C-alpha cells in the first residue's frame, strides 16, 4: 500500500523587500494581539488575578472582613495536620475511582458504537447523548434527587414495580457516593464522547483497510489500530475527567451536602465549608493550592505516561 506523498507547506516568498516583511509581521502580531485581547483580559481578570489573590490569601488569616494578618505557612501546616482532611482526600479518591473509568469507558464505548456508519439515527443518538452535558449541574442534581427520592421518586417507583428496592440512596453512607458519582457520569460523559468521536474520525480509513487485508478481526483492529491511534485523545479525556473528579462539588452540594455523615465530603466541599461556612478564607485558599498542585502533578504523570506510549508507537 502506497502512502500519498506528504505535502509540505512552504510559505510563499515575500513579494517586497525585507523591510516590508518585517512591517507585515509586526502588523500581524498587533492584529493577533487585538483579536486575543478580549480573551486575555477576561482570562487575566477572572483567572490569573484571582489565582494570585488566592495565593496571597493562603498566607494570611483572611476571613473576608478587616485587614488579614500574615501567618506564613501556618495554613499549609494546618492542611497537612487536619484530621478531617484525610477523610476528604479518601472520599475524593473514591469518587475519582468511581467516576473517571466509568465516564471514560462509557464515552469510549458509545463513541465506538456511534462511529459505525451503518447505525441508523446516528445524528439523533449523538445529539441525545450530548444533551446532559448542556444541562447545568445543579439542575441535573435536583432532577436526579427527585428521581431517586424514596417517597416520590419515579425511578424508585418503576424499580419497585420490578421488585427492586432502591431504598433511600442519598441517606445511605455506602450508596451516596456512587449515586453522586453516577450523576456526574451522566452529566459529563457526553463531552468525552464527542471528543472520542472526533478522535475516531481522525483515524485514516486506509489503516483499517490495511489491517483487514492483513487478516485482523474487529477486536484486534480495535486493539492494534484504534486504541493506539486514540492515545492522544485518551490522554486528553483522562486528564480532563480526572480534573473534573478532583473538583467534584456541584451535585454533591445539592444532593447530599457532604453527607450522610461526611461520606460524600470531597476536597472542594471541604474548601467551600472552610471558606464560606467557617469564614476561614486563608485556610481554604491554602487547601485550594494544595489541591491545585496535586492535580497538576497527577496530570503531568498522566501526560508523561501517554507521551511515552506515543513515542513507543513512533
Amino acid at each position, binding site marked *: 500500500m502506497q502512502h500519498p506523498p506528504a505535502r509540505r507547506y512552504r510559505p510563499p516568498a515575500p513579494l517586497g523587500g525585507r523591510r516590508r516583511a518585517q512591517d507585515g509581521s509586526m502588523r500581524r502580531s498587533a492584529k493577533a494581539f487585538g483579536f486575543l485581547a478580549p480573551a486575555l483580559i477576561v482570562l487575566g481578570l477572572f*483567572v490569573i488575578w484571582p489565582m494570585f489573590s488566592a495565593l496571597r490569601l493562603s498566607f494570611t488569616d483572611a476571613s473576608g472582613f478587616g485587614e488579614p494578618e500574615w501567618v506564613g505557612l501556618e495554613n499549609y501546616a494546618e492542611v497537612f495536620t487536619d484530621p478531617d482532611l484525610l477523610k476528604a482526600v479518601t472520599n475524593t479518591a473514591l469518587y475519582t475511582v468511581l467516576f473517571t473509568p466509568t465516564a471514560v469507558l462509557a464515552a469510549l464505548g458509545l463513541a465506538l458504537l456511534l462511529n459505525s456508519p451503518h447505525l441508523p439515527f446516528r445524528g439523533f443518538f449523538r445529539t441525545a447523548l450530548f444533551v446532559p452535558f448542556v444541562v447545568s449541574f445543579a439542575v441535573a442534581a435536583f432532577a436526579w434527587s427527585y428521581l431517586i427520592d424514596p417517597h416520590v421518586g419515579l425511578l424508585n417507583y418503576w424499580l419497585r414495580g420490578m421488585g427492586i428496592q432502591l431504598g433511600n440512596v442519598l441517606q445511605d453512607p455506602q450508596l451516596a457516593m456512587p449515586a453522586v458519582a453516577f450523576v456526574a457520569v451522566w452529566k459529563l460523559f457526553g463531552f468525552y464522547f464527542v471528543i472520542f468521536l472526533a478522535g475516531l474520525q481522525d483515524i485514516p480509513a486506509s489503516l483499517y483497510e490495511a489491517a483487514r487485508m492483513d487478516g485482523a478481526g474487529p477486536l484486534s483492529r480495535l486493539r492494534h489500530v484504534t486504541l493506539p491511534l486514540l492515545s492522544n485523545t485518551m490522554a*486528553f479525556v483522562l486528564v480532563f475527567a480526572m480534573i473534573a473528579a478532583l473538583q467534584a462539588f456541584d451535585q454533591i452540594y445539592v444532593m447530599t451536602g457532604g453527607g450522610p*455523615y*461526611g461520606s460524600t465530603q470531597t476536597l472542594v466541599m471541604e474548601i467551600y465549608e472552610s471558606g464560606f461556612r467557617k469564614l476561614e478564607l486563608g485556610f481554604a485558599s491554602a487547601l485550594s493550592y494544595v489541591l491545585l498542585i496535586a*492535580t497538576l502533578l497527577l496530570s503531568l504523570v498522566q501526560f508523561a505516561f501517554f507521551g511515552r506510549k506515543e513515542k513507543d508507537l513512533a
Partner: protein
Amino acid sequence: MTRTRILLSAGGAALALAATACGGGGDTGGPVELTFWHGYTEADGDVLEGIVDDFNESQDDVTITTEVKTWASIDDSLLTALSAGEGPDIVAMPAERLPVYADKGAFAELDDFYADESSNTADLVEGAASMVEVEGTKYGVPTGFVPLAVYYNTALFEAAGVTEFPQTWDEWVATAERLTVDEDGDGTPEQYGAVLPDHATVANGLWPSLFYGNGGNIVEDGKAVIDSPENAATLEYWRTAIVDGQISPTGVDGIGADELFSAGKAAMTVGGPWMASIAEENGIGYEIAAIPAGPEAQAASAIGVSMGITVDAGDEAQAAAEEFFAHFLNDENAAAWSLGSGWPPLRTDVPTEAVSANPVVVSLTEMSDLGRPLLPGVVNSVDVLAAVDELTQRAMAGEDVDALLAEAQAEIQAALDE
C-alpha cells in the same frame, strides 16, 4: 498550551475563593440609606415590611430598604457581598450562624446600645439575648426565639382514640406506638406515630432537646460534654423506640419530616411555628404541644434568628440601624411582630392579652420557658453540629453508642479549641 490550560482549569478550585476584602460604607448628607437583608418570606415577611415602612415614615433621617432572600442564600452570599463592600447594613440570619461572623469581625459591637435604656432591650428573653453574645459582647438583637414543639395531627389522634397528649417520654413512645400502623403487615408501617429525623433536624434542635430531657448537654461553659452516661442512655432509649419500635422512619432529615407530616403519614413531628401554616395548607388539623418531659427535665432547643449591623455600615449607618432596632423592639412592635409572625414575643414584659389573638403564639408562649439557646457563643457551630449529626445518624444505624460518643466528644472539643 494544553498544559497551561489544564493548570488553569485545575485552578478553578482556587478561583472560588478569590473574593478579597476592600471594605465600604459611610454616607454623607441626606437621609441615611440602609439596606436590610432578611429571609422572612411568609406572613412574617409582610409584618416585618410593615414595621420597616412604619419606621421609615416615622422620621426623615433614615430610610431602610429591605431585600428578601432565602435564609440559605443570605448565608451563602453575605461573605462575598461584604468583602466586596456591597453588603447590607443590617442582616438577619439563623442565630447559631451569628457567632462565626461576629468572631471574624463582620458585625458591629452593640454593648453601648444595650446599655442605653431607650434601646428596649432590658426585658429581652434571656435565651434569645444569649444567642447574640460572643465572649461577653453583644453583636446583634434577636428577631425570633421559639422552642421546638410537637405538632400533631388531630384527626389521626382521634382515629387512634388518643385523647390526652403525652407528658413524659414513656407516654410519648406509647402514644406513638398506638399511632403507628402497619396494615399490610410487611414490616414497614404505612403510618408512623412520629417522625424523628436522625440528622439535619429542624434548626438542628431535635437531638439537643432530647439530650436536655435526660439531663445531658452538648457544650457547657466552652467545654464539650456530649460524652456522658445521660446522653448514652438517651441515644439507647430512642434507638429502641425508633428502630425496634418503629415509631418513626429512619434516615429522614428535617425537610423529610415536614413532608411526612404534611402528607399525613406521620402523626407527630417536632418543628417550628411554620408547621402551623404548612399543616393548614395541606388541610391537616393540628395542635401544638410541648416536647414531653424526659426523665430529668422538660426542655426544648430553641430556633433563633438574630440580626446584626455589618462592617459595611459606617458610624452614621450604625446609629441609624440602632434606631431601627429600638423601634423594632418597642412595646407596640414587639407585640405586633409576635402576632404577625406566629413566634412568641421577644420581650418578657409583653402581656399575654396582647398576643391572645393568635392561638399559635399563645401555645408557643406558654412553653417558651422550656426553650434553651442552641450553642450560644460557639463560633465553630458548623463542626459541632456536624459531629452531633454524625453521632445521631450512626447511633440510629446501630453502631456502638459509647464509641460514637467518645468520638463526638473529641471532635466537638477540637472544634471548640480551634
